[in-house]
């Protein structure tokens, strides 16, 4: 049965593949001193990949391939856009960092782009197999990328932990997926949605769904599947950590969203309460653990765990009978988009500050604003945005999240909203503690002189882009709601 391949729909992926191969080839040809051209090529390629994406968005038609297994609709285009923009920012962050580290460069960009390709595939996947391929393509290169600093014991530890736990959870995920197939005979989401309607009381289905939750829960570092996150985030090179905390997490969430809302809406009475529990645990454990951290990257790791908890909150709304799934779906997408930008900004600031403080400890950041006011302002903007303080973007993410659960009604969701409210206050404490160190404390120890500590041009650009988006979305949240609305097509059975 010949399939027609819609090359226009596949154009973003094809451009990324071409860039990957180009980077690889360039790496073979270039002398050591010029290897950073691979970075430039990667950035250029990513920017080029955005062009067909914009054209696809402008055109607006839904393109379906392989019998509905690979669909490029509004949701897919938007998520691909998010993946490309965040990959772009990560590439900018990596440019100088990897070069100054003097480790393999061409391979780094090749693997990163491979991961980006995986996430692009995932956004379009509408059946279990393509989803799995996309998910594995996203995380496979990351196992290698986290261990980039081969001489550093922490980096090796990060990679090992991530790999071992990763393949374990992938195995459980596959087990769940195969059981789903076995019970329903369907692989496509549309087919699964039909087949699982009314199957909620089958014990075997519950096992299958839990397998999926475990597998995806690992990817989004939800409690109790989060144990890899702090060590992996701390050990990996910081741009890779940024990529992990944003793209990889977003990819995991996309998988969650697609499967739960499109493939298994009929089983919401199974997964929604489980996700309620996951949300509460992630928020609470993440926040409480973050309060005790002294290392900035570990703090951001636990903060990402807590933020994943916040993003899971709208899922629980689906448990309420008659709830508007599209509302909950769009709330998570909005939160995801805003979180991506804020978190990337935060990690970019960490890289910039690390050049000055030459340490990963938060204590070393004391008095940073006295030597570099602009860096201090950036720290304030991104960390307060993560806390959800208006008028920075984070407030709208929290707002959308609260809105989706309050609108659903029902006691369990109102309780969840109250828990989320308390958690946002707890979270503020550790975000404010970083800001306080920077502004209110006196410096401990020496800062690196301006000459060697100035952030590279690419890092500046990354910071600027993240800052601009954070401030603009904060003042004009209509941009974010547009994203949320456009992606509703998924949850309303589109």
């Amino acid at each position, binding site marked *: 049965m010949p399939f027609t391949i819609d090359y226009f729909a596949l154009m973003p992926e094809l451009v990324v593949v071409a860039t990957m191969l180009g980077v690889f080839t360039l790496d073979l040809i270039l002398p050591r001193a010029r290897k950073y051209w691979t970075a430039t090529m990667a950035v250029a390629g990513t920017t080029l990949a955005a062009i067909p994406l914009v054209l696809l968005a402008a055109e607006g038609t839904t393109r379906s391939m392989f019998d509905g297994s690979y669909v490029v609709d509004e949701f897919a285009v938007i998520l691909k856009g998010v993946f490309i923009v965040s990959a772009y920012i990560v590439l900018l962050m990596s440019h100088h960092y990897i070069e100054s580290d003097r480790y393999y460069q061409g391979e780094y960009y090749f693997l990163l782009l491979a991961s980006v390709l995986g996430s692009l595939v995932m956004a379009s996947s509408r059946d279990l197999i393509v989803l799995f391929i996309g998910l594995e393509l996203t995380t496979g290169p990351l196992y290698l990328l986290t261990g980039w600093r081969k001489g550093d014991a922490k980096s090796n530890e990060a990679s090992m932990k991530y790999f071992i736990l990763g393949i374990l959870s992938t195995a459980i995920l596959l087990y769940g997926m195969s059981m789903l197939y076995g019970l329903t005979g369907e692989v496509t989401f549309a087919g699964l949605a039909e087949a699982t309607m009314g199957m909620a009381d089958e014990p075997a289905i519950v096992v299958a769904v839990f397998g999926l939750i475990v597998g995806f829960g690992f990817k989004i570092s939800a409690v109790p599947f989060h144990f890899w996150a702090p060590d992996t985030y701390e050990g990996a090179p910081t741009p890779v950590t940024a990529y992990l905390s944003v793209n990889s997490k977003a990819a995991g969430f996309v998988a969650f969203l697609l499967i739960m809302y499109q493939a298994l809406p009929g089983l919401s009475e199974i997964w929604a309460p489980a996700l309620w529990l996951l949300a509460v645990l992630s928020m609470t454990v993440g926040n409480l653990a973050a309060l005790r951290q002294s290392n900035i990257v570990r703090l951001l790791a636990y903060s990402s765990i807590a933020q994943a908890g916040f993003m899971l909150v709208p899922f629980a709304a689906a448990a309420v009978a008659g709830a508007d799934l599209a509302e909950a779906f769009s709330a998570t997408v909005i939160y995801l988009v805003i979180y991506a930008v804020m978190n990337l900004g935060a990690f970019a600031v960490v890289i910039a500050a690390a050049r000055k403080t030459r340490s990963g400890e938060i204590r070393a950041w004391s008095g940073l604003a006295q030597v570099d006011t602009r860096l201090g302002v950036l720290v304030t903007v991104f960390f307060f945005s993560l806390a959800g303080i*208006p008028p920075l973007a984070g*407030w709208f993410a929290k707002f959308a999240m609260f809105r989706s659960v309050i*609108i659903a009604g029902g006691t369990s969701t109102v309780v969840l*909203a109250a828990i989320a*409210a*308390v958690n946002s206050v707890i979270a*503020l*404490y550790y975000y404010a503690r970083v800001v*306080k160190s920077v502004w209110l404390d006196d410096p401990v120890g020496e800062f690196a002189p301006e000459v060697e500590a100035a952030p590279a041009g690419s890092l500046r650009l990354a910071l600027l882009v993240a800052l601009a988006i954070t401030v603009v979305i904060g003042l004009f949240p209509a941009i974010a*709601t547009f994203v949320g609305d456009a992606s509703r097509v998924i949850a309303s059975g589109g």
Partner: protein
Amino acid sequence: MEWFETWALTLIVFLPLAGALLLGLIPGQNEGALKATSLLVTALAFVLSLVVIGQFDFSGVPYNTYQLEVNETWIGAINANYHLGIDGISLPLLILSTFVMVLSVIYSLNHWEEPRNPKAFLILMLILATGLNGTFVALDLVLFFIFFEVVLVPMYFMIGIWGDRSPRRIPGFGREVQTRLYASIKFFLFTLFGSAFMLLGFLALYFASGDASESGVRTFDIVELTVLGSEGAFTGSFAFLVFGAMFLGFAVKVPMWPLHTWLPDAHTAAPTVGSVLLAAIMLKLGSYGFIRISLPILPDEAANWAPAIAILAVIGIIYGSLACLAQTDMKRLIAFSSVGHMGFIMLGIATLTDVGINAAVIGMVAHGLITGLLFFLAGSMSHRYHTREMSRLGGNMKLMPVMGGILAFTAMASLGLPGLAGFWGEFMSLVGAYNPLDGLSLGVFRTAMVLGAVGTVLTAGYMLYMLQQVNLGEPGEEWQGRQFHDVDRFEMTAWAPLVVLIVVIGFYPKVIFNATTESVVSLVEMVFS
């Protein structure tokens, strides 16, 4: 003036923010330009608010009609709009906000606290001004929430960077902490906690408005929600939970006992101008929220909660006064006096009558002027004496007669001396408590009235105690032979208008009542009958 009507409020709210951005571009060494810009921007906002008075229609306009309205789509997807407007209740508060802000800038011009950084301090003041002005004119719940929260960050930094650096030991913590660090994060966390629940309440109202309205469209608009609420659309346990959630948010800001514990620390630790802005304007955000949002949208629930609010208010009055009597630190005494005074304001609101709410509004304005001036004086005195301990401060009248005189005047105003502004708030809220809304427990309210009256005696007690300790008597040994420069020009320019206004409002409260009475009477009629 067509353009003025559409642009006035937007300018008043956002001019300070524009000024802050401009200040960001001016280099820190160019202090003249910094001071001139901030003075210009705040003065302009104040002048605009005066012109607003000129344009305001004081004739009997029913409640829920606003003047100088602006209503533009902002976040269409959730029907949250950029809706600003002013009526008789918010007008005096807006004037208070712009007025005290411009006086604070004047005072700041030659009073900088360590670490000296005029640029940063002025930028934070201007951002704060935007948040404060915006809250009073916002007519959309999301917009209100944004402005309500925007004030937290500048105040956090003002207390954190320029606050009191003396160490203190907090019970339960092993090591000592600098007061400013403790006070700033306590203030931030406490108010954020309240605001988080307030947001949940707002969202619940939004959700319910969809069911309640005929068109089925959900809205965040305060005007539309008031219409729905006064028709009794929000009832039952839903209304109870929503009122409770919003109560948390507003009560922390007021502050009501027992959610007041952030206030003494924040006020005492803050730099002078920070304390002034906190006391004079920020506290009003909470009680304004009650009057503008809680009462009109959830009237039946308000009636249910009124006795509880009255009791908490009275506890606040008595507790605040007793705590004042125990203080040795002058600024902390004035901070607790704020708790007491806001208790009178909340008692007025709890009566749910026109007399009571009118008392609350004039009480808010009076408290703003009086306590603002008190904190100015306390700050100036601590700047000169380098101490706030009242036991060491005796005989101020002999060392600095003008400052002592103004202090005596303000203390008298604060304790509610008839003829000065403070009298009206206290007196009228007690009168209002005698005759609460029909159906409210007379027993509770009249007891509250009696206890409130006892509270006025206690208020007089601690204020006179402070005066005696600080102003009267002989100067201590340590001050012998020292020259203290009395009130300088900047201080006088900042304080004289406050003194004048306190007297004017005291003798002729119609200045305020002209604006508020119509709105308050119509509010009570529309909502509670």
